C-alpha cells in the first residue's frame, strides 16, 4: 500500500506540474509576454509530449523498440485534417471541430495500429524495430500518393500510384477545395489548434497512461516485458496485452498528430519521417524508460534546445548532436554516477550546517 501511495504522489505531482506550467504559460501567452517563436512552439510541444508519453508506453512499459511512431502521428494528422477541413461548413464551432478531428485522427491511427501490430508484435527485439521503421516509411510514401478533395458531393479520394495524376483529376466542383495534394501535402488548412486544447490532450494522455500502468492491465504489460515466459505461465495473454499497449500508443500518437496538423496552414508527409520517430525516441530514452514525467521534461528541454542554441547559428545542430552524445555517455557512466552520489549527500550535509 505504501508503494501505491508513493506512486500516486508521483502521478499527482506530474499532473500538478503540467497544470501549473500550463497556467503560467497561458497567462504569459494571453498577456503577450512571449516571443512569437516561443508562442508558436506551445502547441507542437504539447503534441510531442503526447508523442513521448505514448511512445514510452511501448518502449518503456511494454519493452518493444518502435522506430515508426511518427507514422501513427502522420496518419492521425492527415485523418484529422481531412475531417476538420471537410466539416468546416457543417461544424462551424472550431473547438468542437478540433475535438472531432482529434477523435478521427486517433481512430485512423488505431486502425493502422491494429493492421501493423497484429503481424509485427510476433517479432522480437531489433527485428520488431526494423519492421516498425519500415512501416513508418510505407505510411509516409502512401500519404504522398494521396489526393483528397471535398465538394458538395462529399469527399473525393484518389490514390496516385503512378505519380502521373494531380489534384485536377479529382474533378472537384468550382466550390470544392483540395485537402491533400499528394507529395505537396495538405494545403489551405484552417488553423484551429490551440494551446488549451494541447494542454487537455496532454492531461488526457497522462491520465490514460498513468492509470493504466497502475492497474491489472499495466502490470500485465510490464510482466510480459520483464519475463515473457513467466508471464505466459501465470496465464497472461501475451498478444492481447502487447497489442493493447501498441494500439493505445498509436491512438494517442494519432490524436497528437491531428492537433499538430491543424496547427499549420500546410503540412507535408515527410514532416513525419524516420527522423521524427527517432526524435521522439530520444525524448523517451533521455527522460528514462517507463518514466512518464521524465518524458515530459526531456521533451520540453530537447524541443527548446535547438532554439536555445540559436546563438551558435550554423553550429546549432552540431552542438545538439554533441550534447546528445555527451548526455548519453554521462548518464551511463558508472564513475560519474558514483561521483554524483558522493557529491549530493555532501551538499545536504553542508546545508544542514
Amino acid at each position, binding site marked *: 500500500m505504501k508503494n501505491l501511495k508513493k506512486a500516486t504522489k508521483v502521478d499527482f505531482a506530474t499532473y500538478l506540474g503540467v497544470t501549473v506550467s500550463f497556467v503560467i504559460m497561458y497567462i504569459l501567452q494571453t498577456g503577450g509576454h512571449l516571443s512569437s517563436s516561443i508562442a508558436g512552439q506551445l502547441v507542437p510541444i504539447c503534441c510531442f509530449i503526447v508523442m513521448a508519453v505514448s511512445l514510452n508506453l511501448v518502449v518503456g512499459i511494454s519493452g518493444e*523498440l518502435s522506430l515508426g511512431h511518427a507514422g501513427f502521428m502522420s496518419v492521425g494528422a492527415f485523418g484529422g485534417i481531412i475531417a476538420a477541413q471537410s466539416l468546416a461548413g457543417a461544424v462551424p464551432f472550431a473547438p468542437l471541430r478540433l475535438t472531432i478531428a482529434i477523435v478521427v485522427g486517433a481512430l485512423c491511427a488505431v486502425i493502422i495500429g491494429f493492421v501493423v501490430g497484429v503481424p509485427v508484435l510476433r517479432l522480437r527485439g531489433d527485428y520488431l524495430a526494423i519492421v516498425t521503421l519500415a512501416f513508418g516509411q510505407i505510411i509516409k510514401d502512401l500519404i504522398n500518393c494521396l489526393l483528397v478533395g471535398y465538394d458538395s458531393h462529399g469527399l473525393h479520394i484518389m490514390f496516385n500510384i503512378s*505519380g502521373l495524376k494531380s489534384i485536377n483529376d479529382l474533378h472537384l466542383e468550382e466550390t470544392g477545395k483540395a485537402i491533400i495534394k499528394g507529395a505537396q501535402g495538405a494545403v489551405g488548412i484552417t488553423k484551429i489548434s490551440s494551446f488549451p486544447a494541447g494542454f487537455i490532450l496532454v492531461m488526457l494522455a497522462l491520465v490514460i497512461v498513468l492509470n493504466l500502468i497502475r492497474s491489472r492491465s499495466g502490470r500485465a504489460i510490464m510482466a510480459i516485458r520483464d519475463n515473457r*515466459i513467466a508471464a505466459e505461465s501465470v496465464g497472461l495473454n501475451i498478444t492481447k496485452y502487447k497489442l493493447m499497449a501498441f494500439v493505445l500508443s498509436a491512438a494517442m500518437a494519432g490524436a497528437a498528430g491531428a492537433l499538430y496538423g491543424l496547427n499549420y496552414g500546410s503540412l507535408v508527409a515527410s514532416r513525419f519521417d524516420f527522423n521524427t520517430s527517432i526524435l521522439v525516441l530520444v525524448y523517451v*530514452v533521455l527522460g528514462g524508460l517507463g518514466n512518464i514525467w521524465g518524458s515530459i521534461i526531456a521533451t520540453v528541454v530537447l524541443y527548446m534546445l535547438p532554439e536555445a542554441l540559436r546563438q551558435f547559428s550554423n553550429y546549432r545542430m552540431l552542438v545538439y548532436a554533441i550534447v546528445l552524445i555527451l548526455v548519453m555517455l554521462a548518464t*551511463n557512466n*558508472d564513475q560519474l554516477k558514483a561521483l554524483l552520489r558522493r557529491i549530493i549527500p555532501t551538499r545536504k550535509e553542508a546545508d544542514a550546517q
Partner: protein
Amino acid sequence: MVFFTYLISGISLGSVYAIIALGYTMVYGIAKMLNFAHGDVIMVGGYICYIALNSLGLPAVLAVILAMIVCTVLGVVIEGLAYKPLRQAGSLAVLITAIGVSYFLQNAAQLIWGATPKNFTSVVHFNLPSGLMSLGLSSEALITVLACIVIMVALTAFVNHSKLGKAMRACSEDKGAAQLMGINVNRTISMTFAIGSALAAIAGVLLCSSYPVLQPTTGSMPGIKAFTAAVFGGIGSIPGAFIGGLLLGVIESLAKAYISTTLANSIVFAVLIVVLLVKPTGLLGKYAPEKV
C-alpha cells in the same frame, strides 16, 4: 531488353547495398547494436574521395584508398569515443548515441563541405565494348558487382579462417567466454568497426560513381536500406547480407520501373515485412529459441 537493363541496374544498386550491409551485419553481429551512423560513414567516404579527386588531383585508386583509410580511422575513433564507454549500458543507450553520431557527422559535413550537392566524378575510367553498353551495362555497374563479389568472398574467408575472424565469431557468440579464452574483446570489436567502415568507404565511392549526387544526407537512405538488406538476409550472416542486398536492389529497381517510382521504397519495405513474418530471423538467419 528493357527488363534486362532494369535488372542490371538493380544488381548494381544491390551490390552497393550488399557491401554496406556486410559492414552492418559484422558490426551488428559483434556489438549487437543498430549503428545508425554507418550510413553517414558512407557519405564521409564519398566526400573524401571527391576531395582527393577534385582538389588534390589524386588518381582514382589512391583516392579510394585515402577514403578507406580516413573512414577506417573515423570508424575506430567513433567506436572508441562514443560506443566503447557504453558497452555495459542498455542497447537503447547505444542506439541513441549512434543517432547522435549520425547527426554529428551530417552536420559536420554540412559545415565543412556545404549543403549544396556536389557533382561526383566517377572513379571508373574505362569504357565497355559497345555490345555490352547497349545491354544497359555500365562500367560502374560492372565494377560495383565485381567489387561486391570480391569483398564477399574475401570477407567469408577472413571470418572463417583468419585468427582475427575466428575471434570475431567467438565474440559475437559470447563475449565473456571469448575473454576467458584470451581474446581481447575490445580490440576485436574495434577491428570489426575498422573493417565495416572501410567497406562503407568503398560503398560510398561506388554509390556516388553510379549516382553522382553527393550531399550530407547522401548516406542516410542507403544506410537504412542496407540495414534492411542485412535483416532481410538474416542479420549476422555474411552470405545473408550479400543475398539480402542484391535482392533488395533488384526489387527496388524493378518496382521503380514497373510499379511506381514514389512507392519503390515502400515496396522494398513491404517485401522485408513479408519475409520477416514468414521467416522471423530473415532468409539465412538462425533461430535460437529461448531456453526454459
